[in-house]
């Protein structure tokens, strides 16, 4: 057990951090369209060139470094499907150049990145398919901070022999949990800054115990989600993956309500950055649900119920 970064992880995160500080972040997301952004192909290109999208060893079950990179990406509000590439594709022996989307076989409706994806990873009950769309997938107007496409009538074919559906679904859970952690930490940090600066009744509103307790619980919830997601990425355990996603989903409900509440009206202006992170959480939570109710998956993984 070691809860601190080793020198390699430190170096990777420092380099990723430098790249993200220049080419990602809320200002970049505003440029891409804010809560209705386009896909950041430029960022993907830079990440790929620097080798950050290949930090997970193919087929290895230890993807901790990849999860750390993804957490940083998500915390910078990147408009990128790099999470799928970092944590899901290494389980599949496939070669895809551009962005991918991940959906389940029964999916019908909006899906993150579908309109921009070169390929869709389609998770079934006991098989996984890689579907390369034969015609463009239409965009959906969505204002939850992600580029979204409309997935209907998935074409047949593309079955990947021997690809473990359960493992792919599990890694999808780790990816979504990790992305939620990055976005939640962004929302929490910006809120802590706000309540520390904003004064009413001659005192910082963050000095009121009602606000302090609310944010302390948020922080405990996010920390729990973070360490479970990292542990799941390290061990590759399906039960820890389900727990990580459950914790992240539950935490995201607290974060959504409380960070907005403590911002007052400022929290629902488009000029301010908070909504860029919080709205994303709604999309991520719906995606989490599409892989099966997280808490039910957790109960299933532990007791077979």
């Amino acid at each position, binding site marked *: 057990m*070691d809860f601190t970064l080793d020198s390699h992880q430190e170096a990777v995160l420092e380099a990723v951090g430098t790249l993200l500080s220049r080419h990602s972040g809320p200002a970049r997301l505003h440029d891409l369209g804010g809560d209705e952004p386009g896909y950041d192909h430029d960022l993907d290109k830079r990440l790929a060139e620097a080798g950050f999208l290949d930090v997970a060893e193919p087929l290895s079950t230890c993807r901790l470094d990849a999860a750390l990179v993804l957490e940083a990406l998500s915390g910078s509000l990147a408009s990128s499907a790099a999470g799928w590439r970092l944590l899901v594709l290494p389980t599949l022996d496939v070669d895809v150049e551009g962005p991918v989307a991940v959906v389940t076989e029964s999916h019908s409706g909006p899906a993150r990145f579908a309109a921009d994806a070169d390929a869709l990873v389609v998770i079934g009950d006991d098989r996984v398919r890689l579907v390369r769309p034969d015609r463009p997938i239409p965009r959906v107007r969505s204002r939850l901070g992600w580029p979204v496409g409309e997935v209907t009538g998935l074409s047949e074919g593309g079955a990947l022999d021997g690809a473990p559906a359960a493992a792919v679904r599990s890694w999808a859970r780790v990816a979504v949990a990790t992305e939620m952690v990055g976005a939640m930490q962004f929302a929490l940090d910006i809120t*802590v800054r706000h309540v520390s600066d904003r004064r009413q009744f001659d*005192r910082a509103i963050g*000095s009121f115990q009602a606000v302090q307790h609310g944010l302390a*619980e948020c922080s405990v919830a996010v920390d729990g989600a973070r360490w479970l997601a990292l542990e799941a990425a*390290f061990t590759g355990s399906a039960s820890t993956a389900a*727990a990580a996603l459950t914790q992240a989903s539950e935490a995201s409900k607290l974060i959504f309500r409380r960070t907005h509440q403590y911002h007052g009206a400022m929290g629902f202006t488009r000029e301010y950055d908070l909504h860029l992170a919080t709205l994303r959480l709604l999309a991520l939570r719906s995606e989490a649900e599409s892989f099966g109710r997280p808490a039910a998956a957790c*109960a299933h993984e532990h*007791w077979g*119920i």
Partner: protein
Amino acid sequence: MEFDWTEEDLSYRSELQDFLAEELPGRWEGATAVLGSADNAEYSRRFAGLLAEKGWLTPHWPTEWGGTAATPWMLAVLGEELWSRGEPRGPQYMNVNWIGPSIMAHGTPEQCQRYLPPIAAGDVIWCQGFSEPEAGTDLASLRTRAVLDGDDYVVNGSKIWTSYGDIADHCYLLVRTDAQAERHRGISVLLMAMDSPGLVVRPIPGMVGEHSFTELFLTDVRVPVANRLGPENEGWSVVREALSFERVGAPRWARAAYVLDETVRGALEQGRSIDPVAVEAVGVAKTACEAARMLCYRVIDERARDLPPSPHANVARVAMVQAERLVADACAALEGNEIMRYGSDSDLQMRKSLAAGVAAGTYEVQLNLVSRRHLRLPKN
């Protein structure tokens, strides 16, 4: 960063598990007693003796006092395995985790010689004389007076919510030795024999299982000056340090996870159907235990590195309380009307979860500490 156990820790855990499977009858906790009850405390004398023979009662103590200088991770494994079997050490987990270490850190050679060997042998029960009727969460407002008279302190006052007061041999007692000083400065720690004349112990029936608290009334109780732990009037820093040992010494998440596991298995064995609402509650509760586990591990990692106590311990405490409560909700959802049966899992867990957010520092105080020290939110 990595989350593997060492081979050494793994084999220690499996050795412990084998021992516990042999020594503890299945579900002994539910059959006999709950933590805090007199039955449990008596049981602990036998059980702690067995642990002591194995060198597992005080493995983290220095070899000088019968320990094996085990690492914080081994101690964590020990705590986890014992708490997940209902903590058969009973009150003695306090002795070994913080009363003993506190005596080691601040005791005179005579005090160490007198008090540590019985703790290491598992043969003694201590209680803690902290709370008073007017000093609960605000512990530093305590008023029990100790006045010097020759070689003794003469102690007058009362203590409340003292677990094991009726069966303990000694009390780790907080008293005020300087009434004029700023309130944190006039406090001292006395190691008081529970058979001291002038001490009256009154039980207060509790609703947390068979547990009962006691109230201690002290009237001109004489405690030798030689029994003062640490310097006079500096008891506050002595006890604060002692309690920092306590925070992660009690991995309540492990006990909660055990109760949840037993309740789910019980339902499955009896062929009861588990509806989707209960499945959801069970998954959320299991997750809360897992999150608390990782947040405790983060603290143990800091301890293993010899870092000073950090607010991560408060974060872990908050998560453990939440886990206890969510497990209570899940047990109730699983068992339905079984909660009406006294001693059912849902009944017992409901009771224990009530104490979780109060005992050893309230949930709200932990949130205060998380917001000020971890999030660095401003004070008024």
